[in-house]
């Protein structure tokens, strides 16, 4: 195995890693909200992203809408999509053992994946927009504009959700219901409604991710399989429910993927990512930033 460790390759890998990290952080915000804050496990989160990607794809490819304007459609759609799924399937088993939630949402992910396979075929689909080839150079490093926009979108989304949870009544309601549902109920918070809202919000962020990703990413029925796992990895790395941690976790995994791909042969970079994840789970399950909880 030859290690091509030239400075230019590494610089490009780091730059791409930061971009990819922003993307990973963006897709994981929803999960850190619903799993980290609300303790609802959703193994179909990756497939929700797939729904967002397909929606954005069709709006851009068939509707000829500018990808960044599709946000106005994808975000509300995914919000209500999430709410509908939650109402029908997850909310009835909210008090069941955690494994039942995992199994149910795994079932959901199989349904969504294969429904997409039936409706849209197994082909990998991507769309060329006028943004797709926009890029600029810093020294020898090429920065892609749509990826940079996704990174900025990720930062804005993180800050917005943090601000929402900290300052607004309904945001505080979400945190209160997560901490102590009984006390929250006594304080006059409609807890079931709050769960619904959090789940919808967690799903809506994937609408945003779909729109921001479609200019430079692809979509396929199985796209959520890998990205879904990435979401869980990022959330564990960042510490459950920690929004800043989610961003840092995204960066770590983004860099691991690109620097790993520059250094390791073939697709072994993936193994590197999974190894980081396993090591973190074993030795620092509370995440990079959090203090140890009992």
């Amino acid at each position, binding site marked *: 195995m030859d290690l091509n460790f030239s400075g230019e390759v590494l610089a490009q890998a780091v730059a791409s890693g930061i971009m990819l990290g922003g993307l990973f952080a963006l897709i994981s915000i929803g999960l850190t909200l619903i799993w980290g804050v609300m303790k609802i*496990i959703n193994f179909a989160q990756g497939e929700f992203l797939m729904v967002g990607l397909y929606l954005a794809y069709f709006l851009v490819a068939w509707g000829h809408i500018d990808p960044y304007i599709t946000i106005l459609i994808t975000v509300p759609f995914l919000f209500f999509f999430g709410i509908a799924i939650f109402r029908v*399937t997850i909310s*009835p*088993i909210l008090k*069941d053992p*955690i*494994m*039942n939630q*995992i*199994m*149910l949402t*795994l*079932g*959901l*992910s*199989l*349904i*969504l*994946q*294969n*429904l997409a*396979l*039936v409706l849209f*075929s*197994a082909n990998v689909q991507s769309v060329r927009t006028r943004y797709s080839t926009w890029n600029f150079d810093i020294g020898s490093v090429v920065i892609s504009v749509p990826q940079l926009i996704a990174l900025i979108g990720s930062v804005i989304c993180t800050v917005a959700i943090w601000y929402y949870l900290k300052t607004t009544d309904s945001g505080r309601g979400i945190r209160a219901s997560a901490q102590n549902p009984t006390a929250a109920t006594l304080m006059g918070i409609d807890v079931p409604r709050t769960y619904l809202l959090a789940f919808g919000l967690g799903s809506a962020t994937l609408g945003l991710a779909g729109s921001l990703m479609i200019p430079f990413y692809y979509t396929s*029925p199985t796209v959520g*399989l890998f990205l879904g*796992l990435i979401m*869980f*990895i990022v959330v*564990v790395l960042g510490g459950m429910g920690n929004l800043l941690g989610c961003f840092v976790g995204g960066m770590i995994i983004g860099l691991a993927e690109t620097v790993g791909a520059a250094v390791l*042969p*073939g*697709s*072994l970079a*993936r*193994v590197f990512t*999974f*190894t980081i*994840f*396993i090591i973190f*789970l*074993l*030795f620092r*399950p509370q995440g990079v930033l959090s203090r140890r909880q009992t």
Partner: protein
Amino acid sequence: MSTKMPYIRILVIGALVCLLPLFLSSYYMHIAILVLIWAFLACAWNIIGGYAGQHSLGNGLYMGIGAYAVAYLVSRFGLTPWVGLIVALVCSAAAAAFIGWIVFRYNLKGAYFALVTIAITEAAVYVVSNIPQLGGAGGMQIEYRGNSLAFMQFSGKSGYFYGGVILLVFILLLTQWYRRKRFFYQLIAVRENEDAAEALGVDVVKAKIKANVMSGMLCAVGGVFYVQYFLYVGPRSVFGEIVSVQILIYAIVGGLGTTWGPVVGALLLVPLSEIARAQLGNSFQGAHLLLYGAVMVLTMLFMPTGILGAVGSLRQRWQHRSATPVVDSQGGEAS
């Protein structure tokens, strides 16, 4: 009911099933063999997932180790799969012990355990895809040598069918036997309340590792059978999330932690999915997985203990009503 009754039931049903090749056409024999393979794998998963309550989402790993060990030794060195089987058992036991040791020692459970096991089996896909000696992403084929027990190959379907029946009967007897043993009681105690089990002197970590090793080795046997039947193995056909999920669906739908549950689940779902695949496969790729997803969601919503679990509690309610005042606190488990 006599304590021998469950064993007799397994043997009698096994013997009756052996008559099936007289009636089934080659296509239905194929489906029957698939049922046997998946029922066996689901029974193997049931030990760690059902009895010990640790829902591994990565048992495809052990199945893959078994399949790859045999495929490698047979296709590269011309060894008999019987040697491969031994290597497969040793490798899978080592892998399951190592993974179990790390994971359980650090006390990962629930969703974390599920995630680690997914990560490991997904990592295995990429590792194997990058090893040219193991066929890379394309996988490996085993040469067909005609009817030969030494190479675990049969010219017709019935050889594989009987092999599958023997394996399934074996694992059912094994589970039934262990159900009355201290070890499985320990596992059930761990599943129901880990702290209480620990307080009663159960070495929780050790019990879980043992269950993982047992389940892993049996899954490897299933993998050996799989590769001998299809004469092909590829990274995604054994490793990876989808296969691992498929293994556990049968156990969950049939009834977790019951001897017959995984068999009932496989018996119901495998033919259904094969028929869906055959009827709709061309225009409706993925129909069988769609079906699995729907069944899984419906099971969790309406019958979270699976078919046998539901039957068990119905039976219990019935007995309760017909004037037996004693309620079995164990409940819910059909034997």
